[in-house]
């Protein structure tokens, strides 16, 4: 663990921070993921786009085993879990999950705790860090997301955009190696989207490794190093934003982008 909590851990330059191979998952008869492979180099931003039901949220949730894949290997840093080799133990899931912080579409802040208590919940209640040190660090994280003044508020007293930014601070507080964002702006009023994306852009600029599921194409264009376009449980296209978003190779990607960029056309 670093002494500089608000900066990401120093990447191991020799291999990508995240490798995913052969990931597959079905809910009953419905195959949501069919053999997905990708890598995320340390310090890079991967944006996952695709129509709803394409499997992008399940892919993200497989990275921390909130959804447990049926087959495939997920490695984050030095923790590797082979979901094909059942049974996957609670311990393995916990180890994998501890590598990443997660920001949810519906923020999922703890309503009975103040903003600061939310942010320090991981460090104090789980990691057993000294409370006053954790609170100092929590306040730093809150100023990073522009909410230093609201430390003692309860979540219900905040706007949707502020709640989402607290969610980001809470995820950062566990000092993860990787940040996962599951449609972090989809539930927000349009005028609140910008403040959340701005915080995410700043994190990217600071060198955080991020995997972001979103419909915000402009964010992907500006911030992503890699874009994955998913459809039908597979990665249909991958590449730089220019490759996937500006000159998509497949008809499916072209149609999807057309639909969300020009919905009335």
């Amino acid at each position, binding site marked *: 663990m670093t002494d500089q909590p608000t900066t990401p851990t120093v990447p191991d330059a020799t291999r990508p921070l995240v490798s995913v191979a052969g990931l597959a998952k079905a809910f009953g008869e419905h195959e949501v993921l069919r053999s997905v492979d990708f890598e995320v180099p340390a310090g890079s931003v991967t944006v996952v786009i695709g129509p709803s039901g394409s499997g992008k949220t399940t892919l993200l949730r497989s990275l*921390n085993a*909130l959804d447990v894949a049926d087959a495939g290997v997920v490695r984050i840093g030095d923790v590797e879990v082979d979901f094909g080799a059942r049974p996957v133990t609670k311990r393995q899931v*916990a180890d994998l*999950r*501890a590598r*990443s*912080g*997660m920001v*949810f579409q*519906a923020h*999922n*802040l*703890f*309503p*009975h*705790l103040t903003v600061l208590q939310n942010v320090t*919940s*991981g460090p104090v*209640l*789980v*990691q057993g860090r000294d409370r006053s040190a954790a609170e100092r660090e929590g306040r730093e994280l809150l100023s990073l997301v522009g909410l230093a003044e609201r430390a003692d508020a*309860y*979540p*219900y007293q905040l706007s949707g955009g502020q709640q989402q930014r607290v969610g980001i601070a*809470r*995820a950062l*507080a*566990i000092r993860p190696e990787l940040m996962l964002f599951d449609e972090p702006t989809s539930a927000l009023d349009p005028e609140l989207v910008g403040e959340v994306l701005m915080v995410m852009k700043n994190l990217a600029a600071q060198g955080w490794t991020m995997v972001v599921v979103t419909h915000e194409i402009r964010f992907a264009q500006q911030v992503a190093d890699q874009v994955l376009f998913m459809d039908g449980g597979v990665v249909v296209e991958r590449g730089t934003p220019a490759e996937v978003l500006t000159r998509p190779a497949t008809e499916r990607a072209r149609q999807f982008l057309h639909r969300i960029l020009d919905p009335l056309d």
Partner: protein
Amino acid sequence: MNDQTVQLILDSLGPLLRATVTATIPLTLISFVLGLVVALAVALMRLSKVRVVSGIARAYVSIIRGTPLLLQLFIIYYGLPSLGVSFDPFPAAILAFTLNVGGYAAEIIRSAILSVPKGQWEAASTVGMGYVTSLRRVVLPQAARTAIPPLSNTLISLVKDTSLASTIQVTELLRVAQEAAAPTYQFFALYSVAAVYYWVVCLVLSIGQARLEERQNRYVAA
């Protein structure tokens, strides 16, 4: 009301108050606290994915709710001695009321736990909490808000149900009133005094419930 009746009532105020404080209230509070412990365990068992475990909890709740409390008291106090297990009246009453509260409150706690959104468990887990920490720090505090009104009902019912302990020789409020009334047949006067005492205890608990609810609501929008 003649002077004799008034005198009898005045004379009974002290003994009835003593019975309330030394028997009715302790019976209620001890059974309720122990009952909540049983209820939490039963609720968690019912939520278990292991069929046998949830089945045991389901059977327990079914038996407790499907038989009269008076009968449960009789089985423990009059029935168990034939199996070689005897209790004094007071512990027998505590045991019966604890098991009874455990059955009813288990369902309340179970549904309160289920009322907490799944996303709360997930968020707790992504900051590193295991099952016990998630339950203790995230889920139960929120479930408490939902559970307090129905649990208060259980508590208030229990206050009055403790009067059943009079049937197994516990000298609680009703029994003391009975004994005081019997020699002179002044049942109306003495039972009325007892009724007022029960009512006052319940009133105090209702006030406590309102305060607790207010406190729980501090983190939700008005």
